[in-house]
């Protein structure tokens, strides 16, 4: 069964609020770069960047990370070490904001942090997620949260974005 818990309007608002919070917490957007985690995190990062551009009239770099190779919960793919630095720009001295759709165990984010290494030493790394569904297995928390959605472990959260799925929304599938 599927149940929509965030509709397109609420998703739009969540991204808007996250954008404002980024400005609030960084006292502006100086040195801010966004890094989206593939697939949907990238589109979310691009939307946040577009919003920042609207407000501040400045282009924010958006990087893309593919971390499927780095996750430690796929023991069969024996950790191919993060060999190649994936971003087209350096994160040295930047305020990096990682963007992902769902924060769950925290393992994706840990892998993303690994993948960021090698791009220089950032000033800071913060995390923005559209949905925080709890059940963390690592000491990781999000700085910007679209919506907290308490879930059971066996439930699935499906985030849809127009670019990939034809519509915006978040559904719980059980």
């Amino acid at each position, binding site marked *: 069964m599927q149940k929509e818990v965030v509709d397109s*309007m*609420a998703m*739009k*608002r*969540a991204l*808007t*609020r996250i*954008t*404002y*919070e980024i*400005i*609030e917490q960084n*006292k*502006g957007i100086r040195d801010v770069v966004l890094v989206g985690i593939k697939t949907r995190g990238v589109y979310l990062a691009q939307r946040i960047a577009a*919003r920042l551009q*609207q*407000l501040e009239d400045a282009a924010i770099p958006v990087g893309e990370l593919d971390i499927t190779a780095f996750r430690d919960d796929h023991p069969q793919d024996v950790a191919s070490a993060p060999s190649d630095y994936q971003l087209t720009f350096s994160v040295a001295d930047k305020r990096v904001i990682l963007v992902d759709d769902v924060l769950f165990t925290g393992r994706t984010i840990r892998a993303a942090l690994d993948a960021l290494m090698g791009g220089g030493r950032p000033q800071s790394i913060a995390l923005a997620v559209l949905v*925080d569904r*709890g059940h963390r297995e690592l000491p990781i928390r999000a700085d910007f*949260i679209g*919506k*907290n959605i*308490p879930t059971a472990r066996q439930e699935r959260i499906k985030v849809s974005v127009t670019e990939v799925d034809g519509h915006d929304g978040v559904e719980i599938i059980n």
Partner: protein
Amino acid sequence: MADRYLILEDGSAYLGEGFGSPAVSTGEIVFNTSMTGYQEIITNQIYHNQIIAFTQPTIGSYGINHDSYESILPTVKGVVVRDVASISTNRQRRWSLDQYLKQQNIPGISHIDTRHLAKQLRASGPMKASIVDVADAHAFDQLGATVLTNQQVAAVATPKPFPNPGTGLNVVVVDFGLKHGILRELSKRACNVTVLPYTATTEEIINLDPDGVVLSTGPGKPQDLPDSVLTMIQNIQNRVPLFAIGLGHELFAMANGASIMKLSPEHHGANHPIREVITNQIIYASQGQGFAVDPATIDRNKLITTFVDLIDGTIQGLRFRDFPAFSVQFFPDGAPGPTEARDVFDEFVESMQQARGPIW
């Protein structure tokens, strides 16, 4: 029905027919272009001491309904229409507009060339006007001599706190003459609301341990309010999420260093396209404003412009850079008017939820 006159400060007079109360009254005349919602407009306290001319020609056609009040006791000074529907029954079986205005001691005048009046007011800006029985020199002298109060907020805001209970977030609404739509929207979102008089101090507000504070709509010129209001806003805005509407928005801007200017022509209707800056989307919302934030006086290190009227570029929304305090000039609750801006109430609720942190 008796012949009556609408006379204007500039010496013009319109012959019409009286309805509602037979009283003689004086106020500032403005025109409103909304197509529906005369009851909401008449009962909106932003029109305290004003005479409203409706451009929609037939007013009163569905009577007065119990769920369309925006205040308990309307304080407009008059209603000017081309044609009033003199019906004594309607689908919801409430009062007719004529009966209602009689009860509330508000005069109305019909058979006015409201299109011409609107064009006249568009050129001149609002003027003093009276609804009178005789349009003689004496009447014009009286009109000229009338000084309209600048204490509108004191006249319409609640003198005492009152609750509007709910089971959710705890919200304090500071009342400058609020329209009920604000309470309606907060109730829909289950908020537990306490309405405080506009004289409420920072301490009185904080003592209620609010999750968020709303500065309400209201009548008049924001500069006429005591400075203590601005101090209160400055003290509150960085402590809890703040949401300011209409007059509240103008006060929020002033508290953060911006100046307020007289707007001419004024906005009274729901037909202007408004751009939400962050998404570049265009929305429509109910407006009732005679003042606007002067864009040149905004400290861009402090405030972000969030909404802009695409007709004349007036600022329709602001947000503090460093904390969740934001404001809109338009009426996001509609009532009457488009409902697409109601979303801003969700934004406020979500800001409060976020400030409180997750519930697990």
